């Protein structure tokens, strides 16, 4: 009798959103200790099935406190092992916190544990981790998406109040979509990258992975703002003015890029996304068909520019000051380092890197032109729902093509939100909302209006 009551309490506490958790603590409905213990209990039972966490905080287990958050293992946490999903960092203990961690701790957040990810955040499925793939909580034979695979799975399985991920080409939005939860890639320059292990420095952003859009907005407020360590982190701090929050979408213009609904998009996913768009219309939005003509070149531009930046950033792993030797890099990491080294080497620089950087300008301009006519752009996040583990792992190019709808936001630097909008055969589908540079406010608001008018977040995976 007591056991089932306890089970029920654990279940209830872990199902709370961040916002509900804060309210519950304020109302003294439960204590921080009970909250943390509930999550630890659940992790003990479920983590072996899904492999979301690589490390659980021993310190927090001994002294449960704060609002427990799961942190992607490519983000530095002082004195807590940080591996970035790589063998070469398997024993790395950071001597300092990433800025975002300090900011979260100031708000009373505690680091519950470090989540699994594709090695050095290079991947779209979670299968490139040196510590085994994370499984999708909705179907354990399927990928959770990557590279923030563990963070997304942890939020979907209610193993934390919220999580942090990073997004360079879709690594927050893709797993959020495949795991049926919310993921936000802020505008480039919104959140300091200090302490996030760099992948491609002109693309990387840290962002929230949460149970609701409101939670994502709150976490963004907490983590954003300049710290003097990221030269590109601009001076504008994000704070939502509640007076500007809308209850419906009247007067809002939503752009639908025709290139995002063409070949390659799974019919089932298209149907669900179009139904979501109809809902947006019901809520008062005006739908406008637009064109982003350089969409088809996005992947090619991305997979030259990003590996080039990677080849430069990864020179630091010399195995002298920390970490293992370069021979222990995984395949995807080696592939990208070599691709980048080749693209940047003399004789090829103009043909590859400079050319891709010019195409990047054209893609950025495509968005700027469209945003003169509409407030947000909406479409799918992923061309398909979660695929089987191992299905795309053999052919790198096939894996890269799944990023078609997400990489453009990173190329242009604009913010992108993924939120649940339905299911195909029991697997989640994410709706993507893209906004103007530094306009997280509008995309979050549109997301929240849609979320409140629908019931998708009430569905939970049966684990």
């Amino acid at each position, binding site marked *: 009798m007591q056991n089932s009551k306890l089970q029920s309490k654990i279940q209830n506490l872990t199902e709370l959103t961040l916002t509900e958790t804060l309210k519950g603590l304020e109302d003294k409905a439960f204590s921080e200790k009970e909250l943390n213990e509930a999550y630890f209990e659940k992790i003990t039972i479920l983590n072996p099935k899904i492999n979301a966490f690589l490390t659980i905080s021993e310190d927090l287990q001994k002294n449960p406190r704060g609002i427990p958050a799961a942190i992607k293992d490519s983000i530095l946490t002082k004195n807590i092992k940080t591996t970035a999903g790589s063998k070469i960092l398997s024993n790395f203990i950071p001597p300092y916190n990433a800025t975002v961690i300090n900011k979260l701790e100031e708000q009373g957040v505690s680091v519950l544990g470090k989540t699994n990810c594709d090695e050095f955040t290079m991947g779209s499925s979670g299968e490139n981790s040196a510590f085994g793939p994370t499984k999708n909580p909705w179907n354990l034979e399927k990928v959770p998406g990557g590279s923030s695979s563990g963070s997304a799975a942890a939020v979907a399985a209610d193993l934390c109040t919220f999580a942090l991920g990073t997004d360079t080409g879709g690594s927050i939005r893709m797993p959020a979509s495949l795991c049926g939860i919310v993921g936000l890639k802020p505008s480039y*320059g919104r959140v300091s990258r200090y302490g996030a292990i760099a992948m491609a420095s002109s693309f990387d952003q840290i962002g929230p992975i949460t149970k609701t859009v409101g939670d994502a907005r709150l976490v963004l407020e907490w983590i954003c703002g300049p710290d003097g360590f990221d030269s590109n982190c601009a001076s504008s701090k994000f704070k939502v003015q509640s007076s500007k929050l809308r209850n419906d979408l009247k007067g809002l213009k939503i752009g639908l890029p025709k290139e995002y609904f063409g070949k390659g998009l799974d019919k089932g996913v298209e149907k669900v996304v179009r139904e979501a768009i109809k809902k947006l219309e019901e809520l008062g939005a005006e739908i406008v068909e637009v064109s982003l003509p350089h969409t088809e070149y996005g992947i090619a531009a991305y997979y030259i520019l990003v590996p080039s930046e990677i080849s430069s950033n990864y020179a630091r792993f010399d195995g*002298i*000051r920390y970490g293992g030797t370069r021979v222990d890099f995984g395949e995807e990491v080696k592939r990208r380092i070599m691709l980048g080294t080749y693209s940047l080497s003399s004789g090829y620089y103009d043909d590859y890197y400079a050319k891709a950087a010019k195409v990047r300008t054209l893609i950025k301009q495509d968005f700027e032109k469209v945003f003169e006519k509409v407030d947000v752009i909406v479409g799918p996040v992923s061309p398909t729902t979660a695929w089987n583990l191992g299905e795309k792992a053999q052919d790198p190019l096939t894996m890269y093509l799944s990023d078609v709808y997400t990489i453009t936001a990173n190329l242009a630097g604009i913010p992108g939100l993924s939120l649940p909008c339905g299911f195909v055969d029991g697997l989640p589908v994410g709706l993507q909302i893209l906004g103007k540079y530094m306009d997280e406010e509008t995309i979050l608001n549109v997301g929240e209006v849609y979320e409140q008018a629908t019931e998708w977040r009430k569905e939970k995976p049966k684990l």
Partner: protein
Amino acid sequence: MKLTSDQVKKVAKLANLPLTPQEEEKYSEQLSKILGYVEQLNQVDTSNVEPTFNVTGLNNVMREDEAIPSLSQQEALLNAPQKKEGMFVTKGVFEE
């Protein structure tokens, strides 16, 4: 664009990535395929287009020339595979 095993060997050396001959073969196939795909960028007219290397457009972001707290020597050496007398041990550069 076909990348030969020899070219892969050269690139791997530039990138300081030790590869076995089998790996050189495997990567030459995979990289050739990827490079073949990205070559479609040649179809795009980029005459009169400036490259974008940084979407924020920021340049030369400076701070005051003041010393601020940083890692202690002990913290910096925390993860060193080999250390001696408070320093990182590395291979000699000038050795015969």
